[in-house]
């Protein structure tokens, strides 16, 4: 109550503003601010990279780390040795070294050294190193029996499916196998492709620029009257003035065909245009002065760039998949129209691989499966020669690119470069399954292809 007057007074002045303000106050404030150091102005340091790029980079790095960790976690259980090592390390100091860890994988910790040695004679060669090492291991300061048992029990739980374990009274040692497979990530490129059609004796089409024959003029000479006979004046090679390499028959038949072979059968140049010459360009003649109609088609060998991941199924077999990018370039010439076609595919390989043989630093393997591809982009750059000998260029987007499918079988040779990094060579035979010829490419025209790939393979895990 006594303070009510105070509240009333404060409420009266709540938001109260003076009607007058001092003149020139802001000018004085400004001059003081100009004279003073800019303490209040916080200058943000310039970012080396924009916030978007920084955050994107962090997201990509986190994703890669998560993927790597996820993959390692998924396949960590395949490596019982790792579990063993972890368990063994709990037992005693003597069991911490690598050789003893391997031995514990085979339940050596439970069995006397002598029994193990005598019964390891039948083991695979890869265990021999372990044998000698086990021999020298003494469990002089062995851990307590309870610890040993706990280690053993842990090993049993983790190795039930894969490793034969030895009972306490048994002298048989588990068959330790060759070092197990590890998941891997491979990066490869393959582009040396050989199509199997080279064995054929049929025609093939070669790219040639328009009017490559120097005797055929590119454009009509207005000073030269057009002869009645549209046949160009090509020197007769028989008179010795013919151009080297023979001459190409321009005629496509009719009454103006050149005279047939009248006995000079050794002159192979006098052939009818109806019979194409193997190895020679096939040209359809269409008269003098104008550009001859030609039909060319050339498909460049595709190049594959890929990232593959191999998931081991057991010691020998593995499942391989990944992402492979391929680009197919083709060139078409028809008359005055020249087309450059480029189609890109994103392929997913689905293969099964098997280790055939190997040593410490090398492996021979084989893989087979299929590869499915989806067209991600396609374009055609069309160049049309106009009557006035200028060019009209257009670019056309290709829609409805058919799915690509191929069967792949390949052997491979892999050798170690560094600790977890291997290089490999993998020639492969591919059969391109016909899925439609809406757009002709190297793969559609060559069903069987030999491909040579080179790559680097990184093994994940210890």
């Amino acid at each position: 109550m006594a303070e009510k007057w105070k509240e009333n007074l404060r409420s009266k002045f709540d938001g109260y503003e003076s009607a007058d303000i001092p003149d020139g106050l802001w000018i004085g404030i400004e001059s003081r601010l100009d004279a003073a150091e800019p303490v209040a102005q916080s200058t943000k340091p310039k970012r080396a990279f924009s916030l978007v790029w920084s955050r994107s980079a962090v997201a990509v790095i986190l994703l890669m780390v998560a993927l790597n960790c996820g993959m390692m976690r998924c396949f960590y259980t395949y490596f019982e040795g790792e579990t063993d090592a972890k368990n063994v390390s709990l037992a005693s100091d003597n069991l911490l070294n690598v050789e003893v860890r391997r031995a514990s994988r085979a339940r050596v910790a439970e069995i006397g050294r002598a029994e193990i040695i005598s019964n390891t004679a039948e083991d695979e060669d890869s265990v021999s190193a372990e044998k000698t090492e086990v021999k020298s291991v003494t469990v002089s300061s062995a851990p307590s029996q309870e610890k040993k048992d706990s280690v053993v029990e842990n090993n049993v739980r983790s190795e039930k499916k894969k490793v034969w374990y030895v009972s306490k009274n048994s002298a048989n040692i588990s068959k330790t196998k060759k070092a197990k497979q590890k998941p891997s990530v491979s990066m490869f490129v393959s582009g040396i492709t050989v199509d199997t059609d080279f064995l054929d004796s049929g025609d093939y089409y070669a790219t040639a620029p328009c009017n490559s024959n120097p005797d055929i003029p590119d454009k009509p000479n207005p000073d030269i009257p057009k002869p009645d006979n549209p046949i160009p004046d090509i020197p007769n090679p028989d008179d010795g003035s013919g151009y080297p390499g023979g001459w190409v028959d321009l005629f496509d038949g009719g009454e103006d065909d050149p005279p047939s072979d009248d006995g000079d059968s050794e002159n192979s140049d006098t052939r009818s245009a109806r019979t194409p010459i193997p190895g020679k360009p096939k040209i359809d003649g269409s008269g003098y002065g104008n550009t001859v109609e030609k039909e060319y088609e050339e498909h460049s060998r595709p190049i594959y760039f890929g990232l593959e991941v191999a998931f081991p199924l057991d010691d020998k077999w593995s499942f391989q998949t990944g992402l492979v990018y391929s680009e197919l370039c083709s060139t078409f010439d028809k008359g005055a129209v020249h087309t450059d076609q480029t189609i890109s595919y994103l392929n997913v390989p689905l293969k099964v691989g098997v280790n055939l043989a190997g040593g410490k630093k090398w492996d021979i393997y084989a893989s087979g499966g299929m590869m499915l591809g989806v067209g991600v982009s396609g374009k055609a750059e069309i160049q049309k020669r106009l009557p006035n000998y200028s060019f009209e260029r257009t670019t056309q987007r290709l829609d409805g690119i058919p799915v690509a499918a191929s069967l792949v079988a390949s052997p491979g040779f892999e050798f170690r470069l560094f600790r977890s990094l291997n290089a490999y060579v993998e020639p492969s035979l591919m059969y391109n399954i016909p899925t439609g010829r809406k757009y002709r490419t190297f793969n559609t025209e060559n069903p069987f292809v030999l491909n040579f790939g080179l790559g680097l393979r990184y093994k994940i895990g210890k």
Partner: protein
Amino acid sequence: MIDYRLIIDQVKSGNRRAMQQLYSLTIRYLTAVCQRYIVGEDDVKDVLQESYVKIFMNIGTFQQREEATVLSWMTRIVVNESLMFIRQKEHYAFIDINDELPDCEEELEVEEFSADDILKAIMQLPTGYRTVFNLYVFEDKSHREIAQILGIGESSSASQLNRAKKMIRSILYNNKISYADGREMERKLAE
């Protein structure tokens, strides 16, 4: 309700136009606050100039959490600058009155008066009374806190408050006593 957050952000980044905008939005209110403590146009101008410079120089340290906080923060700066000015310029302002006058229980009834009249009455108070009155009423300080701020005793603070209330009542109702007369009244009351 004015959204000061955007303006504050601009002021923090050194935008002079934003500073001027903040000045324009708050100058009348802060002038009224300053006039409660300082009498004289030139002195008010000096105190306000000093206050605004301090506000703009230290705006980077301000963390706004509520809408009204920035104005409270600026008001506090003006009040502090006013007190510093009074302490420096009018050393005699705070007379430590040692008499033991009982605290005035009467309320200062101001409902019938406008804020302008009350302000004019406050401006006519002696400096000491005015300062104690402002700190007690508008800054909601206790007598102990006022005593610490002004360097006087608690009882002196209470006494000066009583006298201030009486004088304001007298001014408001009489509306005749000038500043000089108010000081004369102070002298008479002190006797």
